[in-house]
């Protein structure tokens, strides 16, 4: 079994393809959609968690890439630029998944990328703008 969070980026021509259907039907994967930005005739992105057998998972990734989708590891999508962080902690009540939190008693901000669901709320809620995303280009 493998379980992994991914970002799928769709070129405009593929946005209307039933990609999820094939992942479930042809590769027997469980799909948990975390977030989707899909618009007709525009580049789309889908953040999801895939789980299933390792062999099916690898074949599905190959198939996705053959279709022209870009597959990225979700963990790398939001980054914490620690040197810009002033450790105020304003993010800690905005982050819905607990990825951003204040450690106590140190009162320092910590970022656990594995908990991040790429909601992107932190990007603008952080007054020091210490959170960055690679996804900006999609907008």
């Amino acid at each position, binding site marked *: 079994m493998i379980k992994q969070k991914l970002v799928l980026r769709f070129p405009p021509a593929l946005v209307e393809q039933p990609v999820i259907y094939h992942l479930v039907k042809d590769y027997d994967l469980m799909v948990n959609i975390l977030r989707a930005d899909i618009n007709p005739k525009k580049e789309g992105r889908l953040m999801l968690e895939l789980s299933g057998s390792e062999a099916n998972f690898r074949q599905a990734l190959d198939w996705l890439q053959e279709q022209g989708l870009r597959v990225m590891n979700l963990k790398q999508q939001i980054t914490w630029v620690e040197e810009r962080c*002033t*450790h*105020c*902690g*304003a*993010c*800690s*009540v*905005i982050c819905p998944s607990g990825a951003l939190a*204040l450690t*106590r008693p*140190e*009162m*320092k901000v910590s970022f656990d990328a594995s908990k991040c669901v790429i909601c992107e709320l932190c990007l*603008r*809620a952080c*007054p*020091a*703008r210490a959170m960055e995303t690679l996804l900006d280009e999609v907008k």
Partner: protein
Amino acid sequence: MSVQRTFEEINEKIKSGRVVVMTAEEVLDLVEQKGITGAAAAVDVVTTGTFGPMCSSGVFLNFGHSKPRIKMNEVYLNGVPAYAGVAAVDAYLGATALPAADPANRNYPGEFTYGGGHVIEDLVAGKEIELEAFAYGTDCYPLKKIKTVFRLSEINEATLFNPRNAYQNYNVAVNLSDKTIYTYMGVLKPHLGNANYSSAGQLSPLFNDPLLKTIGIGTRIFLGGGIGYVAWHGTQHNPCVERAANGTPLYPAGTLAVIGDLKQMKPCWLRGLSFLGYGATLQVGLGIPIPILNEEIMEYCAVKDEDIFAPVVDYSHAYPNREGGNLGLVNYKQLRSGEISINGTRVPTAPLSSYSGAREIALTLKEWIISGKFLLARPAAPLPSIEAGISLKSLPQRGSE
């Protein structure tokens, strides 16, 4: 009182390397062990710190004269306007100033990615700053416009002058409405979704000298990573609010105007901030040494988060409409725990002021004093305190009489 010390005696101990300094956090354990008198006898100076957003901040600049000369009438630094209604090549850049082209809240909530606070951070970081200025031209100052670049080291003066810093206590902001609001207290989620506060509590300078018995005009302080001074009481200084038995105010109270040479400050302690839907500002690192002149002063410095209270205020309606009132008082221990209870509802809390930053400032100031490079300055004059009879004025809207 059995313990008595003067500023001069403390400075002699600093010079001879015998001074004992603790931060306002470290001293709490000592007071626990030795009591007030024991701690007062053992410690000469308690250092404090705070590192929060402080909008009433800015810098006076003198660029030096161009050839030919110009009497600058409009000044822009990296596109951010500075106030030029002073002498020819002087200007004041405020932390909240925004470029004319900033969409502000036209695209609500606005992002305010670059404002005066960010220019100040870039200046201190030694980055090249674009200066654009316009003038009407005079016989003695013929040039009408100039566009150039400079670095902080290349201009005559850069004097940080913050008319209101180091607020002694502040509101805890919540949102009772049914939509998210964007405030200077951060993003507030609807239906008491979060409670944001902004004070270093037990580490905060004015909570450790609540009645301003040692801090006055001329007090030497840590400012923006360098050395600065208390210049005056801050704007909206309101020392006469209700106080707890330990002297700490239950509401926003005293403030400080502070001044210092920007050229010796550090960008990590002067940080440009962008408050979503509100504006740009500056996060200022500020620390004040409290001389333990006697046991009374040590008792003030022994104040703990659980003994300092702040009012919970609704920023969706009561605050913007200046209706007054609050949803109760909570203490800073509760606030710092990450959750408070408001009318029986559990509400997650978040600080806007960096507690770990405040701790680092207090520790840095302690090191400076121990190493002998920072002497305490006896105030030239006291600041207005509880006996001053100050009451905060509001702004009525009326026609001329």
